């Protein structure tokens, strides 16, 4: 399975948020690096079908990103997400299961499994509004995994996680990335050092570098800064 973006461009009013980007994502973890405002979130929304490119195409094994078939194999964690005020953690996952089209019996099973996986079993019945930032982020990660996605796209997934949680998250993503296409964006290089198989670096809406993680050398931070500093 491959997710192929071919010369995609997205312009909003007078700002080109994504500028003629082409790449192919295969199984494994791909890290998307870039400063705030580089266009990472726009690119992720394009890959999820929330935004439609002004030009270019995005497809996965012949499926267009705007189709129900594609969304059925997609897991997405946005940078910011909310919850309906009456929801407990369990209600939230059951609701997302309903929108993802999972039957009641399977939804209950998956919800239980994922709540345990992200360490929220003890607070599953409590209102989401009582959760800490890290707990909400773990809940977000759980909802992204509900439908056993083949493509997992996560926008700044480690935001709000404490150092211990970051380490566990990396382990989880590394495990998932063995069999699925995983794209995660961050502006924190250390999040990707140990888990990314591939890297993409964005600047001002353009893909300025893409390649294997090993090409970045031992000091990934220095490599990233050198690429960002290069004039095109």
């Amino acid at each position, binding site marked *: 399975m491959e997710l192929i973006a071919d010369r995609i461009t997205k312009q*909003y009013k007078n700002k080109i948020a994504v500028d003629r980007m082409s790449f192919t994502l295969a199984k494994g973890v791909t890290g998307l690096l870039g400063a705030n405002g580089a266009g990472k979130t726009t690119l992720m*929304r394009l890959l*999820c*079908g*929330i*935004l*439609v490119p002004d030009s270019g195409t995005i497809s996965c094994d012949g499926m267009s990103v705007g189709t*129900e078939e594609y*969304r*059925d*194999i*997609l897991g*997405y964690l*946005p940078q*910011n*997400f*909310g*919850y*309906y*005020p009456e929801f407990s953690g369990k209600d939230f996952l059951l*609701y*997302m299961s*309903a*929108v*993802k*089209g*999972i*039957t009641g*019996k*399977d939804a209950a099973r998956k919800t239980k*499994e*994922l709540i*345990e*996986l*992200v*360490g929220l*079993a*003890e607070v599953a019945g409590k209102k989401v509004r009582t959760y800490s930032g*890290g707990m909400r982020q*773990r809940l977000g990660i759980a*909802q992204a995994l509900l*439908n*056993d*996605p*083949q493509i997992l796209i996560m926008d700044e997934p480690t935001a709000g*996680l*404490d*150092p*211990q*949680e970051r380490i*566990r998250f990396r382990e*989880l993503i590394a*495990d998932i990335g063995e*069999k699925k296409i995983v794209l995660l964006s961050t502006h924190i290089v250390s999040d990707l050092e140990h888990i990314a198989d591939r890297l993409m670096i964005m600047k001002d809406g353009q893909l300025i570098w893409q390649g294997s993680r090993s090409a970045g050398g031992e000091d990934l931070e220095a490599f990233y800064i050198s690429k960002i500093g290069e004039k095109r």
Partner: protein
Amino acid sequence: MDHDRLMKDLREICRAPEPERKEIFFQGLAERGVTSGRPTSISHGEFILRQFLYIGKWVWLSSAVLLLFITWICYGNNGNYPFALTPLLAAGILVETERSFRWKMAELEYTARFSLRSVMLARMFLVGAVETAGLLVVIWAVQPRFSYSFGRVFLYMMVPYLSASLFGSVYERKHRTDNGWGSIVICLLSSAFFAAAPYCMSSLYEEQFAVVWLAVFVLLIISLGSSVRRWFLEMEEPAWSL
């Protein structure tokens, strides 16, 4: 307290619980994952029915109170004023369409199998269907109180309701807000318009105009369908301000 001790204590406080049954979870993914064929998916019909549970309770409550109030007003021999109350019912549907944006669930719903469009359409359909059914019951109950036929009472009730729905949907498409106050104001203005209209045109509810009411009813149905369609085709725009 020295630095090492402080760091140790902080680590202890911030310690996240170990994931439980991680191996079993991944084994489950391998056995039941997409690659081995997804076993369970609900139909569109089931999806619509499940949305019943997630519509705000205040929508049902306010609709029920309003329908009872309209019935009570009709029994009080208040002329044609009860017809001007039905636009207020439309506020429930219109505000409900903002719920995903208000609570920042829209982006998650956009990317789910049934997508935000389906969620909004399902909720509009359910609230609209229940309110229309409620109005039909009210019309059946109060029609003997009027000197009009059942069909005419139906038109006099539905045209104001559909007018508010149409103008509210156009407003929401062009000026989406997270709180829905614009829609509520439109419903109030529609209500005021239909309350004042008989003063400007005293023959408005006379039988000779029944055919005009019918034509307006049909036109409103078509326009509302077209407006909702355009609304959903233009849904990419709000994604920029999610």
